């Protein structure tokens, strides 16, 4: 399944990365090269094999549901591109 320009445009949109029209053909070619190389996975017989999602043989640990830290808005906001009065300032979302 080859990746065409329309697919790259769609995936770039899903990824929220602005890719100018003129770079799409070259990008499609690169991604195709990588995906073609990946296609060799089809050779592996994985019938009945459970997907491996974690190499850690332990359950997710639980802890008491209590506040451990927080209440420090200035630290949270310290790297905000824009903040006012203890809030993040973002572009207008609702017209």
């Amino acid at each position, binding site marked *: 399944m080859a990746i065409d320009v329309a697919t790259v445009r769609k995936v770039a949109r899903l990824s*929220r*990365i602005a890719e100018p029209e003129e770079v799409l053909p070259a990008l499609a070619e690169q991604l195709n090269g990588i995906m073609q190389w*990946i296609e060799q996975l089809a050779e592996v017989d994985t019938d009945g094999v459970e997907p491996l999602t974690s190499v850690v043989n332990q359950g997710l640990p639980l802890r008491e549901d209590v506040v451990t830290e927080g209440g420090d808005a200035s630290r949270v906001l310290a790297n905000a591109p824009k903040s006012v009065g203890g809030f993040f300032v973002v572009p207008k979302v609702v017209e």
Partner: protein
Amino acid sequence: MSNLTDLTLKAALDGLTSKQFTSVELTQAHLTAMESARALNAYIAETPEKALQMAAASDVRRASGDAGPLDGAPLGIKDLFCTEGVGTTAGSKMLANFKPTYESTVTSQLWRDGAVMLGKLNLDEFAMGSSNESSASGPVINPWRAIGSDRKLTPGGSSGGSAAAVAAGLCLGATATDTGGSIRQPAAFTGTVGIKPTYGRCSRWGIVAFASSLDQAGPITRTVEDAALMLGSMAGHDPKDSTSLDLPVPDFSAFVGRSVKGLRIGVPKEYRVDGMPAEIEALWTQGIAWLKAAGCEVVEISLPNTKYALPAYYIVAPAEASSNLARYDGMRFGLRAAGSNLTETYENTRAQGFGDEVKRRILIGTYVLSHGYYDAYYIKALKVRRCISDDFDSAWTQCDAILTPTAPSAAFALGENASDPVAMYLNDVFTVTVNLAGLPGLSLPAGLSSEGLPLGLQLIGKPLDEGTLFSLASVMEKAADVSQRPQSWWRASS
């Protein structure tokens, strides 16, 4: 006292203990070396004031008799570890102005044990790369050069700054991270020792995330003993990382120099890949001979799914990366680029903030996770990952550790593999299986190529068996006797 920057971490700690020099003197020697080595571009940021302050505090602690295990030792920190109040860029424009208000668990444990921070080390952007060329701060130059050549070589990646700084004597040891080979391949290219411990040994908390199920921190040092010392401080359970293993940290140093007699060493036949240079093949044979001479039994093993590890990795790692890097939206931290509405702000921010390789991986990850491809690619890759892990499980019935080359070549020239992403990915052909299976892997310098460049061998261990790797590696280190250091050509230009 000879040059303080030539000491091993262990020798430096001994020198501090026996009061041959102070941490301030030791730290200043490194700061001076760093200043004269800027041509290597190993450090993204030098933090001399902080270093001297930490060194002075260390000298006070030592005088009052409560020195920690690494007290006064100046180290470099890969710029992927968040350091409180000190810029942490991950080699990306996206985080050019990011100053964490917290400290990563791994670095906080180094400071707990008395270490001194010299600065933040260069890396591939978001640790994605095998040559350091994807860094927004420009590539690191390998301190090693081929005999009779002044061609600039890559130190490998992504921990290229860490490896180059250790090789050039710009720190006694460095932190690094490894998602597909990013500790071991640079260690091999620079004649240094690097270990990626078992997944879960080191906390990932406060390390900028790339692919969370694969990322592990570890040290790069000049000797096996130094790696054991440093890993002892870096490892340990952390409730803030849910995949951190709640197990005691062994005394790794105690394994250094221990007899390896009777250990069974697996040699996987699938690692004899097409086009592998004869001298790497010869080095591997030499490594086998050293271990035999030390009383090990060598057995041929089979890891049949080895050739599928890299393609599986290039689904799993980009998939996780595309999800992890979704956080860079220009809203709460990092770069924000203007746009006429919210979506355009996101798109412009990410277009301007990320470099080409990072974008490529986000696109691949988004593609393989998208509707209609999820089962065909992502789930398929996770099944292959299980097969690779099973391969190792059956190997462990025949052997106690595995010996392989670390990388398929010596360091290549900057720019040499830049135009072909897949050719670049093949650098990790011997290392990536270890990440997929969550195993410990150690690279040590084993010899020089005919061009005079370092070559590494890799030891792979059972889960949690870093100790055996340190024992084996110290035997091989002694046998290899690679005492040669790179010529300090970089000082001439300063």
